[in-house]
């Protein structure tokens, strides 16, 4: 059946069987392979995408359920070739080793900062509790999100300062 959704700001439509999972639609039909398949049982969060801005597990969502809605994948984070603050955070704080969980971690982190620009470490750990990392441990991931929070609030402060001049 036909399904139409916005993916990273662009309208995409295609024909899929109802049983096709969103993660497979993104990876196979749209060639967006940044969204990973990890456990495939909605435990690990490697397949995290943002559905209307909220992190969800795309291995536990049918593509047809997303009809008319908005998806953001890791490919949609960077703006015009510039790394987003969350990406800079993971780069600067070594928030990854193998990188398999990283797309999901970054999307969860970015969604958290949208809602809560200055989270505590506990709030970050709570937000990423549906995402599993098997190599770095979580310390640097928490630091990476904090780094992004500082970058974002720094930019806002600069923008406010700029606006008053």
């Amino acid at each position: 059946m036909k399904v139409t959704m916005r993916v990273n700001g662009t309208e995409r439509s295609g024909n899929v069987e109802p049983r096709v999972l969103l993660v497979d639609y993104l990876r196979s039909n749209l060639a967006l392979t940044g969204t990973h398949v990890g456990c495939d049982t909605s435990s690990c969060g490697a397949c995290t995408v943002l559905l209307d801005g909220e992190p969800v597990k795309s291995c536990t969502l049918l593509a047809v359920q997303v009809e008319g809605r908005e998806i953001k994948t890791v490919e949609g984070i960077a703006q015009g070739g510039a790394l987003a603050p969350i990406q800079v955070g993971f780069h600067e704080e070594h928030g990854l080793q193998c990188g398999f969980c990283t797309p999901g971690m970054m999307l969860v982190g970015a969604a958290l900062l949208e809602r809560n620009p200055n989270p505590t470490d506990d709030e970050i750990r709570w937000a990423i509790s549906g995402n599993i990392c098997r190599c770095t441990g979580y310390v640097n991931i928490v630091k990476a999100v904090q780094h992004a929070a500082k970058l974002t609030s720094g930019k806002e402060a600069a923008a406010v300062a700029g606006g008053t001049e």
Partner: protein
Amino acid sequence: MVPAAFDYRAPSTLEEALSILKQRGDDAKVMAGGQSLIPLLKLRFSQPALVVDIGRLPGMADIKRENGHVRIGALARHVDAEQSKELAKLLPMMVEAVHWIADPLVRNRGTVAGSICHADPSGDWGSVMLALDAELVARSSSGERVIRADSFFQGPFTTTLRPDEIVTEIRIPLPSGRAGGSYHKLERKVGDFATVAVAVQVEFDGHKVKKAGIGLTAVGATNIKATQAEKALVGHELKDDVIAEAARLAAAAAEPKDDNRGTAAYKKDVVRVFVQRGLKAALARAQEVKA
């Protein structure tokens, strides 16, 4: 993993959904958030000919207070319960319980009513609803009926809901007077199903218990309402001996099995300890609720 093929309908009105179920209810599964059903489809434990996605039905996602009840619409998600100011004020035990369910991403999709209809005996909401004496409103094309939580669960993944029915809302009676509750859960790691969990809700008349609800998770073929333990509390002050006796009766009502989460004897003892802790917490937290 890929589910077996199925037909898919996403009706835009409740009437349309009910008419589909009237014709094809026997080989259909109703899906709300899909967080329980999709894993079953992928594992092919469930292979329905038709999935009826009710996720687009309008006006069913509210959590609101009305006529002495809190009404939870069929499409209210776990995260909606988690963030509900009404629940935090009126039934804080529910907000405590929801923090234990799965993880934040699953809670962004999964629904309270869907989880209850899935009827996993390890599910957390079932015990909460038993402790709160909730009712489920079931609609079919021939009308509406109200099912009490304690006559809803029949066995693992089995309820008294008919194939042509949809649960449209959950109604929870508001406590009157001073009330408090708690949800204690033992899990091996964050987001896991319970090894054991216990929901407790107590209403007080002065220092004495007016009404008590105790629901047990993951210790039987369904979530269990510990009726004898509840009765042993009514009319008494929550002194240590009363609490100990109720905890003993609740443990006796549990029917756990040995598995990789623990032995049956261990789980029964966790029930006993959690009922004690739960009742003490309910007493300490009890506050006036203006219904």
